[in-house]
């Protein structure tokens, strides 16, 4: 009697545990499907011919017909829009790291009056709907000849990316002990040499990750791009301004052209995503 009772209890616990385990795995699979299935469906449409895209009912299996993609690439303005997107994103990347990284280094290495004020300025940018900056800047840019140029748009995107660049580089530099730099100083390096030979190699991968992040911010931005460019549209601006007139297969191929680089970018920076945000919380 007692023996069976003793056997029973662990069994119940066991079933409860395996049921919990099953639920847990089911939840993981479900969320992965929730993320991946819509992307898969977009790719199915992209890899189907224009007739299939407007056809009904759909099978959900791509026919690997590249005529939609061909149509998209040869559509007037697309190639230029793609090139503009890349150009603006690269400029944003250079500007935001070039301006943000020195600030991140200063915040991590020095204590000085005004430090808190600067931090407030950076944090404040997050409490404002930044794409709206495009409205007044459109006026300023027309006056200075920056309207409808890649650099003008890159400047607005840099405002979006700078808070991240500062906070990410701050956390990167903070992760490197000051003692390493001090050791280099005692061995005869000056401040710049020590930075160049000791700190820079250690933070370079992280800086590259935050540069990719800046690239992604610019690549995806729609509102400011649509407001500030007329002739030199970026891909998102081009798509959003043609949404109501473009055929479905053009929209889907355009969507895919925006999604695929994003997938690669996130894969490239995945290791740093959490380090970035861990510090951005404070």
């Amino acid at each position, binding site marked *: 009697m007692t023996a069976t009772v003793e056997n029973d209890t662990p069994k119940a616990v066991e079933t409860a545990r395996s049921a919990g385990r099953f639920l847990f795995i089911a939840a993981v699979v479900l*969320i992965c499907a929730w*993320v991946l299935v819509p992307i898969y469906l977009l790719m199915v449409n992209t890899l189907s011919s224009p007739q299939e895209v407007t056809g009904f009912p*759909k099978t959900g299996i791509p026919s690997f017909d590249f005529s939609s993609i061909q149509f998209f690439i040869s559509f007037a303005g697309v190639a230029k829009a793609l090139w503009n997107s890349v150009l603006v994103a690269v400029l944003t990347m250079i500007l935001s790291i070039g301006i943000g990284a020195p600030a991140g280094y200063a915040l991590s290495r020095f204590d000085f009056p005004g430090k808190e004020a600067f931090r407030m300025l950076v944090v404040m940018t997050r409490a404002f*709907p930044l794409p*709206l900056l495009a409205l007044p800047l459109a006026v300023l840019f027309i006056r200075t000849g920056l309207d409808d140029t890649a650099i003008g748009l890159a400047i607005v995107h840099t405002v979006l990316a700078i808070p991240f660049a500062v906070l990410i580089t701050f956390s990167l530099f903070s992760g490197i002990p000051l003692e390493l730099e001090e050791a280099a100083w005692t061995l005869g390096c000056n*401040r710049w040499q020590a930075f160049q030979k000791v700190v820079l190699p250690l933070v370079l991968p992280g800086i590259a990750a935050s540069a990719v992040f800046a690239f992604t911010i610019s690549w995806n931005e729609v509102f400011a791009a649509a407001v500030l460019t007329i002739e030199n549209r970026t891909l*998102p601006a081009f798509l959003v301004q043609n949404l109501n007139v473009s055929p479905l297969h053009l929209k889907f191929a355009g969507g895919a052209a925006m*999604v695929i680089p994003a997938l690669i970018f996130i894969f490239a920076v995945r290791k740093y995503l*959490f380090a970035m945000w*861990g510090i951005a919380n404070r």
Partner: protein
Amino acid sequence: MTPKALPYLLLLPATVFLLVFFVYPFIQIALLAVTGPEGFTLQHVQTMASHWKFNTALGWTILLAAVVVPIQLVMALSMASIVTKLQTGRSAILYIFSIPLGLSDLAAGIVWLAIFEQSGFLNSMLYGLGVVEQPILFLGYQNIWVIFLAVVLAEVWRATAIVMVILVSGMGLIPKEYYEAGEVFGASAWQRFIKITLPMLRPSLQSALILRTLAAFEVFAVVTALGGTTLPVLMGETFQWQFTLQDRNVASAYALVILAISIAATLFFLRALRVPKGATI
């Protein structure tokens, strides 16, 4: 160069840049919205407020944020808890979970358009299951609530990842000892979540909620992709006034409204989730 001047020199580019391209433009927006040829005027604000689309745009924008943000919070908390409990395949699953982080709202709108359009995958599925005999026009102007639902789905799909990433890194900062102590005193997993995780996560929750709510007020491309101008939102109206109607003063008045509700939301979350002084980890 004196060492004292070095930090200021390093901060100079960023400070100047932000003053010129962030602080100054926002002052400009305010000026554009309330000045006309003869100085101060409330005419632009009146034009905006008396236009029939203003109230609906404001209403839809706030309703969208009120529906989307809580769903995202619950989903992100579950996803973050799952991630922290994972033993095998953690990095692969984390990558999949955070994919939408890199997607733009326009791309998300187009992705969900593939599902909801008349010859799209939802209709194909319903037809295949025999639920409908004809494909339904989901995103027509008669079905404004379906458009709303599609926008909610697209927003939840796209922007939950950012909340999850912030919460995962916040959870990583909570010391393990707290959970061990909780377990010793017999707290169940649910109790540990309510009594330890949630209170300790307050700073992360705060920044995630502020970030997401503000972004929700700026919703634009998703709505345009899925519903055109059928479902008016504030950012879309700003765009319309700037472009189609060529009136940047009224567009700036709209921008001020978005700014005002953003600041209100930020202050609300700063107060509601205030971190007591000295209580940080």
